[in-house]
């Protein structure tokens, strides 16, 4: 798998800093699952975070804080590594998702337009960013749309092309409000993407009108 399109540096830094909402976090985490290069950038940014933390000025702790903490130490059991839980009913049939997303409750594909199915990702947290899987059959041409917020797309299987380039498995497509897409699915297999989207969609055409109420869910 050769990854050509990566998230911008600001996004990887925001991920490492813990500044993303859960929906955005899921999109970046999905890219990281398949991209060792970006995992190392995030790791480097966590080291920068350590440097930033160490360089912050000290704020005096409340009197007796250390003593109060020390009395609680004996009651603490050593932590156990957060192993991966086995998800019996999770999203186990879609490749390329990070382990924690695979653990989310599964939902079923919904037909939204000819050759296009959508499957919502049910997050355990309220998030300003919606996340869903989109499955398009070969040859599907998505109608152009614009939106007022950003859109992050992680390609899991298949491929598509638009004015911004060609996107295959592992690639990350970042669109802000200014981007207009006319997307052509050009793989011979289904193209499954994880999409994280914020802002109101202004979709044009028939697919847009069909998608709009579903994505608002």
């Amino acid at each position, binding site marked *: 798998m050769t990854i050509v399109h990566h998230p911008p540096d*600001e996004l990887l830094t925001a991920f490492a800093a813990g500044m993303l909402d859960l929906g955005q976090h899921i999109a970046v985490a999905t890219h990281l699952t398949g991209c*060792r290069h970006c*995992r190392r950038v995030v790791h480097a940014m*966590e*080291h920068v975070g350590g440097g*930033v*933390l*160490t360089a912050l000025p000290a704020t005096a702790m409340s009197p007796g804080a*250390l003593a109060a903490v020390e009395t609680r130490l004996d009651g603490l059991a*050593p932590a156990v590594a957060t192993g991966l839980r086995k998800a019996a009913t999770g999203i186990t049939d879609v490749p390329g998702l990070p382990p924690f997303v695979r653990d989310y409750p599964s939902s079923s594909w919904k037909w939204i337009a000819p050759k296009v199915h959508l499957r919502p990702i049910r997050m355990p947290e309220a998030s300003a960013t919606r996340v869903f899987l989109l499955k398009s059959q070969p040859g599907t041409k998505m109608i152009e749309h614009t939106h007022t917020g950003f859109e992050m797309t992680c390609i899991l299987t298949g491929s598509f092309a638009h004015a911004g380039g060609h996107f295959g498995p592992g690639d990350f497509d970042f669109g802000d409000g200014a981007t207009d897409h006319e997307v052509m699915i050009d793989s011979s297999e289904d193209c499954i993407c994880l999409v994280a989207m914020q802002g109101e969609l202004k979709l044009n055409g028939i697919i847009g009108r069909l998608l709009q109420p579903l994505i608002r869910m």
Partner: protein
Amino acid sequence: MLNDKPDDATSDAARWAALIAAVAREKDREAFAALFTHFAPRIKTFMRRSGASEQSADELAQEALLAVWSKANLFDPNSAGASAWIFTIARNLRIDALRREKRTRTAGTDDIDLEFQVDDGPSPDAGLAAAQTESRVRSALATLPDDQLRVIELSFFDDRAHAEIAQTLQIPLGTVKSRLRLAMNRLRGLLGDFS
């Protein structure tokens, strides 16, 4: 400070790693107190700048150090620097605190730890890569000018802190943001290619 000579930073990092190892191995309370004295007041500042009240910033800093105690056995000096590791603890506590504030979650930080676990396990060369990363980051930070270091800090806080820092540096917020982009590019260049 961030731009101390790399030698100082290296010995500091080694010292903190040794203290965490002593906590893990022997439940060494003196080592813990030393970690508390250095990190708790800085984590408190980190939480204050993230919008926490005086009292909850204090509590979160205490929680972070309790986590350092109980997770010390999971600290792997080959795959993370001590301050980077403590930073991730503070970061995940901050996320948890923000979620609690919105009353959407009471599950604690274990789930958040999982959310940062993006692959099925460390790659075989993870240890080597981490050691390289740490020394690269350290020397990259050491070469950055002060004003760029100051804005790098901004990436770790939200707009509230950006406005505050713009005020301290007496420059417009727009300038802070463009300076941040510049500093990130510079840092990225210094860190080199990770592929």
